């Protein structure tokens, strides 16, 4: 019997990347090429915008908005979710509201927020805050609710009071859900970002794509899309590393 050769996962990723590039290249030389700029032209667009610095400004604005909105969302979601999970009254009062607003796509309330706050940074951060907050509050709340009741009992018989149970059982047990919430929040933030930038801004990746499409600079459009994808991938990777580092004690590892 021949020894089976195992190929490193990274090699597979590389093969997959090359495959995508080839398909992209093929599309760009077909009749769709008028819209689909080739990988080479896309790269050139990136290099030229990187040299004159404009792309970094766009990335900077977009990242700032996502991270600011997300950070505020997380800071608000954690206490609200724990309140909802711990106090029945908070659950009854807040859950219907959260569930209702959550079903509304952010695009629907973007105009409202812009009218209320203007077209400057605060309106974008606000929209991202709302969207990320809702996703994260629901996820963390579900984590708090699903804490194993046997663990609570075990803590009680070892002498834990309500406060001890909250800080030494409920909080650590929900921690994996906080990390899942962070992951979902970041991806919701990125989606909402582009939507909010499309409705008026002078800088940012969404705006850059919007403007480029008006001048039919498809190389810039595609470059913008790829950059957003890469940012999403990097953020996800960071969360994944955090998960590995902070919740290594978990029985099963969620695949990413």
């Amino acid at each position, binding site marked *: 019997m021949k020894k089976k050769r195992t190929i490193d996962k990274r090699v597979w990723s590389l093969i997959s990347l090359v495959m995508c590039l080839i398909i992209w290249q093929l599309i760009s030389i077909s009749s769709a090429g008028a819209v689909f700029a080739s990988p080479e032209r896309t790269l050139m667009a990136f290099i030229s915008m990187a040299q004159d610095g404009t792309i970094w400004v766009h990335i900077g604005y977009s990242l700032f908005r996502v991270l600011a909105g997300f950070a505020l969302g997380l800071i608000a979601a954690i206490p609200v979710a724990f309140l909802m999970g711990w106090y029945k009254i908070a659950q009854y009062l807040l859950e219907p509201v959260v569930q209702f607003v959550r079903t509304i796509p952010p695009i629907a309330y973007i105009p409202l927020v812009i009218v209320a706050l203007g077209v400057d940074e605060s309106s974008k951060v606000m929209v991202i805050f709302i969207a990320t907050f809702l996703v994260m509050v629901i996820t963390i709340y579900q984590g708090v609710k699903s804490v*194993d009741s*046997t*663990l609570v*009992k*075990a*803590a*009680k*018989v*070892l*002498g*834990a009071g309500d406060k*001890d149970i909250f800080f*030494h*059982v409920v909080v*650590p*047990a929900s*921690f994996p859900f906080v990390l899942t919430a962070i992951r979902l929040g970041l991806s919701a933030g990125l989606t909402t970002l582009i939507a909010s930038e499309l409705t008026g801004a002078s800088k940012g990746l969404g705006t850059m794509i919007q403007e480029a499409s008006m001048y039919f600079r498809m190389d810039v459009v595609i470059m913008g899309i790829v950059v957003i994808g890469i940012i999403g991938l990097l953020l996800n990777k960071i969360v994944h590393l955090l998960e590995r580092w902070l*919740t*290594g*004690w*978990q*029985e099963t590892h969620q695949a990413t």
Partner: protein
Amino acid sequence: MAGNASGNVIVKIDHVEKIYQGRAGNVTALNGVDLEIKENEFVSVVGPSGCGKSTLLNIIAGLEEPTGGKVYVKGKEVVGTGKERGVIFQQYALFPWLTVKKNVKFGLKLQGIQEPKLSEIAEKYIHLVGLEEFSESYPKELSGGMKQRVAIARAYAVNPQILLMDEPFGALDAQTRTQLQTELLNTWEQERKTCFFITHDVEEAIILAQKVVIMSARPGRVKEIIPVNIPYPRTQETKMTKEFLDLKVKIWGLVYREFLEVRK
């Protein structure tokens, strides 16, 4: 040492009744349970599934309240949990985010015990269950038997006078099970803590206990109490003696009759 030691009553269960209100009507889980447990006594409880064994244990532990009757521990009515009562659960219930050592320290910390005493006590009980090598491991790295040993060490560490155990070995394979039985017997002979031990396994009930309580099918009550007058130390060989086998046949018969009640 014989079974019917005439010690002080440490747990008195007085007409305990528990009715659960469910969507499909009320379920009477316990219907007037009376039982006395003496200091240092080892009591096993057997009975058909659903007869209220866990309910009774939770009431003694203070995790649930009876809808009627009372439980007294050392003459005082039980209200909530108390550090003189330790519990070992079938599902181990270890905190997965804490290492073995930190799990064992959990209850000690709540009592305000500080380092270095904290580590000293934890290490003593980890040693007792033979898991020194695994002090820094997380529960996910342990086998079922090892997890239950940690749970036992954690319960012992806070030094309760009464240990309440709800099918602690129920999820383990036969071999690990007999091994843990032997360990529990040895520990009990050394420390003589009062034990209330629920099991489905008649052999296990007899080999450990000074008396076996048989509960009737739902609604649960105490049907019969059979003393086990086999002297300690007992070993796995004890299971081969005539005395043991006679008891086994007798108790098994009683439990089986209740089991048939449930099927009716």
